[in-house]
């Protein structure tokens, strides 16, 4: 299927990236009648052979710890759906002196939607009006009311469970019924009721009923491994197959985009990419381009697409490509709950993730920081894994039959809490091209600059205090849990570690301060669109993926209209 250079084909649209944004665009554009070629920097996905669903740890020689134990306490372990990495051999990134940043990338058909937490939260009306609300950051050029119909479309198509709650600024959606709570969740819910903290069924892109030919969840708790039955959402299993069915879709895998070329007419004309299989450079032409490579990779591609018209990178007349980079504020705490020792052996798995969560419950109240956060929590009688018993070994020490019994007694008694809050963009957090480092394909890499603001530090402190009060109210004891990939000394996560990086090619009405207009179309290049989280103006206390899809759907419909009018 891959195109040879020079190709006679000119596609209607070339999409760069196959994740949440790219997959949504592929579905909408092909079903709208356009021919689409998609570049993906990794290999194709084959769920039948690539997924390790229902595999036991003892069926793998490394038990999930991976070669040399490298996955012990890291996010990427042997069980995870393929090709998500903190580090990619030959494809580095750098950090500026004094900055710490981690960048999780995926090189696989479907991108990070193969790995994501499936948490599917709508942004709220106030999230689009940040500056109007508190004077910080900027407003979006669109309102909640404008994007709401696209949330409806996405939820109806992919399937999201949840419940109608009317929580301020955490809008309800079109929901499938939520699963019943686990013991850990009923326990925490009681404490939250006492503390007047809102604790409601979570909202996740996992089917609790059959939908659009996909069977419901079978409750093995292993969404992160990839789902053979496609009962949770991934772009690779839910978006790309329907694009394929139109007969107008061409996936070009192992294709690393190097540069977007500008034509004499001021429009984007072609993408130069590396065919990783041969190392050769190829070119693909299209009438329009949708960049959805993930926020930072998108910024990198634009910055690397230099021409006499755009010496600082394609569509970067404003100089804001790579700027306004944010991640979610993260902080974690774990508690031990003695009453869970009495819970009899039972199947506690459920869906792959939380059945309940706490949306931001203090909207409109006085806080010592701006914006808010939500709380995710989980624990209990999960499938044992490497590292699960570090904590009890550390606490109990010793050895022998008594240690073994203490491990069993403590099994399932720990619940971990994670806050996910809004970061306000600042001038010290951005990415740019490293002036001297390239990847193995010769493409200049990103260099990250990162600094949390005081608001984020105060928010993380509040998270810690809240977690502690929940643990203690629920009759538990706070225990520390090492999280080497995330925790800094003040309890706030390392930038990038929450994997909600966004904002690097933001939307706006003013071409001097933004890259894209209100339709995610480049101010400077009419046939260039961005459809990942790069266009986001704020990074609210809601995980970005659902909004990436809703915005991509809206952008794609706009692109379709333009195509019909002959504007491209």
């Amino acid at each position: 299927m891959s195109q040879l250079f020079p190709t006679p084909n000119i596609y209607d649209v070339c999409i760069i990236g196959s994740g949440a944004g790219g997959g949504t665009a592929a579905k909408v554009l092909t079903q709208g009648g356009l021919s689409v070629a998609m570049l993906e920097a990794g290999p194709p996905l084959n769920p039948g052979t690539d997924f390790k669903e229902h595999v036991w740890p003892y069926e793998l020689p490394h038990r999930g710890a991976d070669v040399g134990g490298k996955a012990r306490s890291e996010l990427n372990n042997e069980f995870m759906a393929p090709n998500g990495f903190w580090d990619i051999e030959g494809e580095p990134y750098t950090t500026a002196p004094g900055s710490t940043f981690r960048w999780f990338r995926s090189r696989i058909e479907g991108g990070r939607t193969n790995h994501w937490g499936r948490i599917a939260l709508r942004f709220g009306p106030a999230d689009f009006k940040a500056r109007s609300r508190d004077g910080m950051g900027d407003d979006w050029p669109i309102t909640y009311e404008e994007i709401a119909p696209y949330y409806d479309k996405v939820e109806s198509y992919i399937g999201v469970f949840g419940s109608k709650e009317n929580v301020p600024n955490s809008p309800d959606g079109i929901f499938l019924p939520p699963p019943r709570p686990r013991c850990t969740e009923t326990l925490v819910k009681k404490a939250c009721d006492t503390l007047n903290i809102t604790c409601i069924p979570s909202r996740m892109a996992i089917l609790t009923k059959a939908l659009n030919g996909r069977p419901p969840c079978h409750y093995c708790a292993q969404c992160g491994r990839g789902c053979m039955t496609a009962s949770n959402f991934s772009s690779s299993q839910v978006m790309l197959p329907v694009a394929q069915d139109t007969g107008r879709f061409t996936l070009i895998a192992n294709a690393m985009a190097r540069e977007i070329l500008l034509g004499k007419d001021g429009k984007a004309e072609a993408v130069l990419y590396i065919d990783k299989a041969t190392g050769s450079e190829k070119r693909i032409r299209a009438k329009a381009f949708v960049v959805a490579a993930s926020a930072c990779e998108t910024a990198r591609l634009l910055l690397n697409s230099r021409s006499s018209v755009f010496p600082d990178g394609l569509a970067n007349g404003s100089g804001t490509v790579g700027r306004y980079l944010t991640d979610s504020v993260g902080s974690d705490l774990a508690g031990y709950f003695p009453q869970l020792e009495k819970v009899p052996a039972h199947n506690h798995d459920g869906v792959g993730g939380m059945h309940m969560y706490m949306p931001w419950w203090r909207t409109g109240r006085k806080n010592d920081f701006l914006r808010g956060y939500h709380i995710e929590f989980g624990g209990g009688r999960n499938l044992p894994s490497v590292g699960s018993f570090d904590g009890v070994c550390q606490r109990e020490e010793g050895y022998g039959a008594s240690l073994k019994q203490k491990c069993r007694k403590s099994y399932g008694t720990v619940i971990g809490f994670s806050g996910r809050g809004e970061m306000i963009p600042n001038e010290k957090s951005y990415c740019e091209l490293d002036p001297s480092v390239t990847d193995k394909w010769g493409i200049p890499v990103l260099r990250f600059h990162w600094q949390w603001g005081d608001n984020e530090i105060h928010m993380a402190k509040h998270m810690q205090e809240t977690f502690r009060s929940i643990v203690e109210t629920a009759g538990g004891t706070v225990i520390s849990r090492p999280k080497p990939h995330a925790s800094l000394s003040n309890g706030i996560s390392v930038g990038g570690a929450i994997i909600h990086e966004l904002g690097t090619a933001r939307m706006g009405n003013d071409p001097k301060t933004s890259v894209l207009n209100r339709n995610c179309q480049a101010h400077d290049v009419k046939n260039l669109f961005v459809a990942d989280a790069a266009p986001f103006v704020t990074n609210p206390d809601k995980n970005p993926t659902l909004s990436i899809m809703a915005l991509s759907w809206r952008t794609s419909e706009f692109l379709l209209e333009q195509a019909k009018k002959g504007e491209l």
Partner: protein
Amino acid sequence: MSANFVSRRNVLKSLGMGVVAGSVLQVIPLEAAEYAHHMIEVERADPRSGGYTPKFFSPQQYKTLQMLCEAILPEDADSGGAIEAGAPEFIDLLTSENPDYQLKLGGGLTWLHSTCLIRYGKEYLECAPQHQKAILDDIAYRKNELLDPTLSPGVAFFTFLRNLTADGFFTSKIGIEYLGYIGNTFVSDFPGCPPVPDV
């Protein structure tokens, strides 16, 4: 049998190869290679080694590792122990791939070896049970290194080994059964939390 382990080690040592064989056998004289192969076969047949040839540790070190793993999580009335769970093989595999583990565990076993020689005039495996217990009691608790800083390497070693042994045991079939984990399977409905007092 232990004499044979030593013989094999001596053969390989005399060939200047260190302790671990593997693909290096291809370049040693045929006669010696045949002998080494023979010794590996003998070792595989030894029920005490479980048919497993260590990838990193010397046979003697591996034997010690097995004993330590079993001491950490032993067989009891409810289940088998760390050896039956395959913890030593798991630890050997990871160590063979990770220089940091090699330093921590290889160094730790060497520390244990020399400390036993100094204290009791014998290596760990040859020590009387009460001496083995005495040294484990010393290195199994962090507070002891505060009283006697010379124990620090042993405490660090044992702390690390305890974590890995727990990994190996509780990710095994018998370990998972011991915990009473139920799941990792297809269910058509999720019933939620069963009735439990205070939960």
